[in-house]
């Protein structure tokens, strides 16, 4: 994504370490809706201290000035411990998990689609986690664009439903939040 100029639009993956208190998610989401920032993806789960702290991963986009503003606004929320801009501070990993359902019955000439779906799943390292004579559910983990590509390939083969977790991200190397 464009990261060059001050006016350029870029995508940012931001990790936020928060106290796991009631209302914290509403606070973060309210900040984004109240100030008109984008949320492309948001994930949250307890990660530390016996569930006392949670990590929120947010994928957002905006100009450099807006993204800096988002980080500063997040950082001044009282229950926020740390904010890290993974896409700026260095190389990082970002992964999503997806389950995707294909309906392609054996009868009605769907057999070819079934074989094709399995072949593609293999090539994309998607796992079959459920199968019936009429359907498959594939599980797949990877970068957002890889998941997007797989969804597009499945579309003509009977794509019926997609469930995605949103992005979890972490810095490469020894860097920690």
């Amino acid at each position, binding site marked *: 994504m464009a990261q060059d100029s*001050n006016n350029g639009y870029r995508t940012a993956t931001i990790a936020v370490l*928060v*106290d796991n208190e*009631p*209302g914290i998610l*509403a*606070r973060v989401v*309210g900040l984004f809706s*109240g100030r008109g920032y984008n949320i492309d993806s948001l994930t949250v789960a307890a990660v530390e201290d016996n569930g006392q702290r949670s990590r929120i991963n947010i994928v957002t986009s905006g100009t450099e*000035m807006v993204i*800096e*503003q988002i980080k*500063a*606004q997040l*950082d*001044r*929320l*009282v*229950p*926020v*411990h740390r904010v890290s801009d993974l896409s700026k501070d260095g190389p990082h990993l970002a992964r999503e998990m997806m389950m995707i359902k294909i309906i392609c019955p054996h009868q009605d000439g769907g057999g070819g689609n079934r074989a094709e779906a399995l072949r593609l799943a293999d090539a994309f390292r998607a796992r079959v986690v459920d199968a019936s004579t009429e359907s498959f559910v594939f599980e797949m983990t990877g970068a957002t664009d890889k998941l997007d590509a797989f969804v597009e390939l499945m579309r003509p083969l009977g794509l019926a439903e997609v469930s995605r977790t949103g992005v979890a991200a972490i810095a490469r190397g020894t860097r920690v939040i």
Partner: protein
Amino acid sequence: MTDAAHPPAHPVIPTASGAEILLRALKDQGVDVIFGYPGGSVLPIYDALFNQNAIRHILVRHEQAAVHAAEGYARSTGRVGVVLVTSGPGATNAVTGLADALLDSIPIVCLTGQVPTHLIGNDAFQEADTTGITRPATKHNYLVKRSGDLARIIHEAFYVARSGRPGPVVIDLPKDILIGKAPYTPPAETPHRSYRPRTEPDTALIARAVAMLKSARRPMIYTGGGVINAGPAASAALARFVHKTGFPCTNTLMGLGAFPASDPQFLGMLGMHGTYEANLAMHGCDVLLNVGARFDDRVTGRLNAFSPDSRKIHIDIDPSSINKNVPVELPIVGDAGRALEALLAAWDADPTPVDRPAIATWWRQIDTWRGNNCLRFTQPHEPGSIIKPQYAIQRLYELTRAVKQDIFITTEVGQHQMWAAQYFKFEQPNHWMTSGGLGTMGYGLPAAMGVQIAHPDALVIDIAGEASILMNIQEMGTLSQYRLPVKVFILNNEYMGMVRQWQELLHGSRYSESYSAALPDFVKLADAYGAVGLRAKSVDELDGVIREMLACDRTVIADIAVDPKENCYPMIPSGAAHNEMILGSESAGGVAGVTDEGKVLV
């Protein structure tokens, strides 16, 4: 309290009720007064209040006023203002006050009653999702769900309200928590686990700021409410710094009083209704030092034309205020007072001389702008002449010079507010209370009440408009009950003047719904509340009424009939640049050129 290394032999068995623990925590936080209004869910607190004398409760007549009163108390003392309201409508009524305190960065702790925990979410009687409703209107809020958390949360709320950039904090208190027994813990001595705002500025950045300032040929110092919030020592440091540098200084509406208005280096307020010299100096400067102001849209005018040729330094305690509207070259996070002290030290440490001839040329330029005398007005003096609102404020200011008391001014919102800012001169911080960020009509009367509670012997004047004053007029009852000798000085132009002015300038003089019809007789109204009512109808009556008001030791409403057609100038029309200001009605034709883009701005 015990620490982990020495656990008590027996766990502490709480003996006091949540309500008693609450009051104990407030006392430990140094609270001496609460502004509140009772109701079902907070009865246990009122019961506990009944049994003690350390904390005084001021019974307001509307919960919005309780918050504004606490704001007035906080702004005039530098302490945290405390509010107590009941659940449901008590809490929702307080929301405007909370939003006001948020935008003006005023430290408030607001205690709201809540239905008992087992009823939360059941649409119980007088239940409201108070934490949900107030989340965007507070700096932070809490719902106390366990008695064991009560004392800690109260102490934390005070810490959050006053630390960093101050603001309002709500504590929602379910009734069962107030009635049940709760343990007490004193204020923590350990730092807060996550909220630790930076107050000490980076010395390397301060040195760079000094280098930039010393290289300036046309410098400008622009300061805001952050200097006031940093305490009187910060204002004193500002004055020393401005004098040491010899640079010009302007204040925002929120920052008035941080630098003495009578000082020759003061250019007056800047912004939409700021002085010509302040705005042109902002536009023309080459190095701009912002201390504790936030480049608000009332100050900047059209962003892409704001101070176009300056290198900018911004000192603020809130990192999110920096680079929000205006990109700056040198951002410095820290407390305004600490930063000014650091600037003073670094200034002496840096041997580079200032370009005195260039600065002298800059002052000559500023003096020609000053020569424009942008706040001039003409007051006819023949008996029976109508009073110009500017003249009323000017006389109020001049006649209060003889008063020996400390003088505090609050305002409502509108033209009178701007005239007060322009014509009343503030020499010290914490003596000027106005709703800057939210622009809340109805702020001034309850705020004056809070100021008078904090300073019983001071002269407290609410400079009001006839429309705004009616928004919290019920507080005359509170003033009467506590014998608070607040003076309400109404500039009665029979219009929502500021609305009328915009309609005249931007909407073809179609005065849609801006006439103040069916006004009460303010003299009789004062009388009805046990106060003194005075009226001046023409210029020959003005001084007499002001003198009588100042001499009176009771609550006074002075109804001053002023010219209904007067507009507030100078003015930077919406969407215009600083150097496109209108100086008076003669040049107001200029706003015909305001684009639709400008019109959408408020």
